[in-house]
């Protein structure tokens, strides 16, 4: 039994220690409060955007007695959209399409210049998470207090803090869902009905769904929405280029980072500006480390810039260890700092003998964003905007649609004259009732009559069209064979307002006769 056993150099493919988990648990993030210029700017934006969202439906706009007086109203039942002095009918939906195109271009413009500014500053998810964090901080304290509370046993104090937070969250959520429905009906009336329980079921359902999503996304899901649910982090990669400003950790001046900078310096070791205090990680609402480089999770909210700047300030270094920078300026600065594939960053290339940053480093300012691509987007955006404004200014507030009967296309009458039928639609797109005179021109001897009537009304008649309404009438035009040139005789149906300098619309109509007419 002295046989030597062979040892095999092999390992099970699913060895327990090397297995990755199939599902990862979420790590709680407790963003710390920041003070700084970006944070202030974000508070301001938050106030403006939330103000617009909650207050807009309550703005009144007088349109006279025949139209609603709500400044912004999507009237789905009557298929009208009101926006201050603009009113849009469904067939004018191209204005909305144009606005969507403009919004798309604006998104390209913003992303290609200042990166994911939409994500970081104005996305509803970001704004409401910010708002929910304010509430959380008010009841539970800042980062450390919240971590402690998380770990604490469920006592009276924890229960009261938690329930207060959730109650306020729910109130905000219901208000958020509630504000949405006011865009679709008269706000004061709907508010009364809603409270009294008289509003439509769809109103309660909408508020319920939006309150639930607001509460879940803002209170519970937070960064998970951005990382796992939103397609935008993936799409944005296609819009950024090397000249787009993004939140960047400037490792050319930060590395090698050290918590013991003074000791290291004394020992003659190379040391960068980063004191590895992790302030940038502590404030990050996404819970990431910007020093790992640009990454999918980063919404470029710039709070790490504020955090790092205040630290740099304290230790007497220039601001901007984390800053908005472009990839090209970053690469340039890395080269200047001596970082190549062979060598590490050399601190002596970064700072001069007096400890000042060398002047050859590139800094980015707002001017960086001005490049041809920017101007093309601005040009496109303005061109579409201007075109839409011009169209809005000169558009008609009446329209006439004429449909020739197709079955039968003509009728021979007992006296051998020919009759054609037309469905005429007169659109009064103003918010006052108007009268329109309908007239046939260029068809001698022809006379009209209305469906259901047996009286001829000659060549013209007047219709009253209600405010903001469409009037559909069926007219029959009868013409003697002698006035018809051929199988197809062109004539005009004109509709004009009965007041002086009123609107007028002319339809080039066709009168169809059987074969052989006019020969």
């Amino acid at each position: 039994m002295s046989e030597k056993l062979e040892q095999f150099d092999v390992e099970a493919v699913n060895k327990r220690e090397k297995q990755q988990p199939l599902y990862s648990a979420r790590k709680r993030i407790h963003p710390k409060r920041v003070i700084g210029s970006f944070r202030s700017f974000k508070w301001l934006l938050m106030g403006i955007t939330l103000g617009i969202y909650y207050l807009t439906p309550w703005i009144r706009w007088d349109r006279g007695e025949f139209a609603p007086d709500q400044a912004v109203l999507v009237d789905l039942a009557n298929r009208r959209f009101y926006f201050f002095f603009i009113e849009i009918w469904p067939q004018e939906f191209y204005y909305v399409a144009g606005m969507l195109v403009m919004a798309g271009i604006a998104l390209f413009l913003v992303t290609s210049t200042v990166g994911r500014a939409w994500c970081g500053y104005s996305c509803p998810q970001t704004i409401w998470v910010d708002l929910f964090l304010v509430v959380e901080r008010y009841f539970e304290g800042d980062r450390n207090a919240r971590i402690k509370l998380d770990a604490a046993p469920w006592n009276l104090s924890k229960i009261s803090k938690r329930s207060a937070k959730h109650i306020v969250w729910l109130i905000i959520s219901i208000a958020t869902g509630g504000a949405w429905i006011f865009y679709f009906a008269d706000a004061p009336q709907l508010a009364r009905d809603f409270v009294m329980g008289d509003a439509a079921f769809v109103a309660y359902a909408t508020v319920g769904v939006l309150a639930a999503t607001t509460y879940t996304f803002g209170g519970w899901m937070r960064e998970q929405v951005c990382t796992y649910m939103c397609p935008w982090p993936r799409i944005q990669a296609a819009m950024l280029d090397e000249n787009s400003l993004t939140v960047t950790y400037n490792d050319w001046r930060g590395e090698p980072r050290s918590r013991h900078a003074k000791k290291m310096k004394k020992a003659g070791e190379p040391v960068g500006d980063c004191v590895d205090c992790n302030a940038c990680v502590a404030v990050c609402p996404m819970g990431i480390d910007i020093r790992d480089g640009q990454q999918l999770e980063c919404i470029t909210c710039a709070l790490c810039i504020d955090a790092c700047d205040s630290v740099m300030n304290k230790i007497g270094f220039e601001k901007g260890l984390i800053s908005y920078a472009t990839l090209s300026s970053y690469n340039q600065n890395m080269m200047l700092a001596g970082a190549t594939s062979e060598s590490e960053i050399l601190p002596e290339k970064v700072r001069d003998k007096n400890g000042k940053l060398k002047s050859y480093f590139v800094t980015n300012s707002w001017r960086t964003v001005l490049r041809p691509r920017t101007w093309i987007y601005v040009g496109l955006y303005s061109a579409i905007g201007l075109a839409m404004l011009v169209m809005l200014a000169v558009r008609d507030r009446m329209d006439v649609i004429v449909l020739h009967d197709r079955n039968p296309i003509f009728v021979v009458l007992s006296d051998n004259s020919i009759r054609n039928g037309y469905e005429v639609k007169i659109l009064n797109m103003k918010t006052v009732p108007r009268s329109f005179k309908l007239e046939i021109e260029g068809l001698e001897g022809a006379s009209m009559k209305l469906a259901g009537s047996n009286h001829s009304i000659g060549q013209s008649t007047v219709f009253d069209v209600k405010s903001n309404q469409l009037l559909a009438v069926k007219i029959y035009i009868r013409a003697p064979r002698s006035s018809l040139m051929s199988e197809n005789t062109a004539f005009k149906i004109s509709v004009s307002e009965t007041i002086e300098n009123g609107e007028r619309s002319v339809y080039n109509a066709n009168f169809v006769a059987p074969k052989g007419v006019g020969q």
Partner: protein
Amino acid sequence: MSKKEIDEFSGVETSGHEWDGIKELDNPLPRWWLWTFYATIIFAIGYVIYYPAIPLINSATQGISGITARSLVEQDLKAAQDAKAGILATIESSSLEEIRSNNELFRFSVAGGKSLFKVNCSQCHGSGAQGAPGYPNLNDDDWLWGGDLEAIYLSIKHGIRNDEDDDARISEMPRYGDDELLDTDTIRAITNTVLEMAGLESDAKLAKAGIEPYVENCAACHGDNGKGDIELGAPNLTDAIWFYGNTNSEIFTQISSPRHGVMPAWGERLGEASVKKLAVYIHSLGGGL
């Protein structure tokens, strides 16, 4: 199974898929995603219990709700019927003239009549009521039995020359040729008389010869001047509209062996409101008098 590959930057396993040097990381899913998945399964179980869901060989599971697509349609139809009940009752109790002069009733009747026409009448009269050989065009102003609202209403309600309704309009032109009431030459002469009355090309000599037999045989219904008589459903022979054609041979054939159109009575089948709607619709087609 392929060898596991760990991405050197992220330390995460790759999926083994590669496109132009770009490899896909196999990051673990968040666990809440898994819970969401389980939640959808639980929802599906609830759905299957509540709604009809699983197809069997001849039927499907019913579900405890009792909801079926058919029952939903029935509900919708009932809701539509209930919504229309009021206006239908008004139409039933209103006179045709009242319906025509009331904008709401008129529009409702035209829309409803149009749909009824497509289902019940278009087979013979055509989808645009333009008629067909042997079936009158309802758009023009030439009416065999009258073209005012009341006359149209009665024609629809009782029909023409049918056996089912005692009040059906009835008239019959004698078969002058087939029953040998007139000889061929006389019929030929009358044909020319009719052509002349209509202002169409005719043989003057024959036309003159036909006047006497016309007055004796035809004028009782068609009138001395050939203007017809709607009381008897006798067509006007002087206008531009010819039911069975206006050539010499077509007119000869009609005198010799006349055809007679038949229309069923609709009053019993469709009910009072529907017949009124149809009458108002047909009258609105432009030919109504």
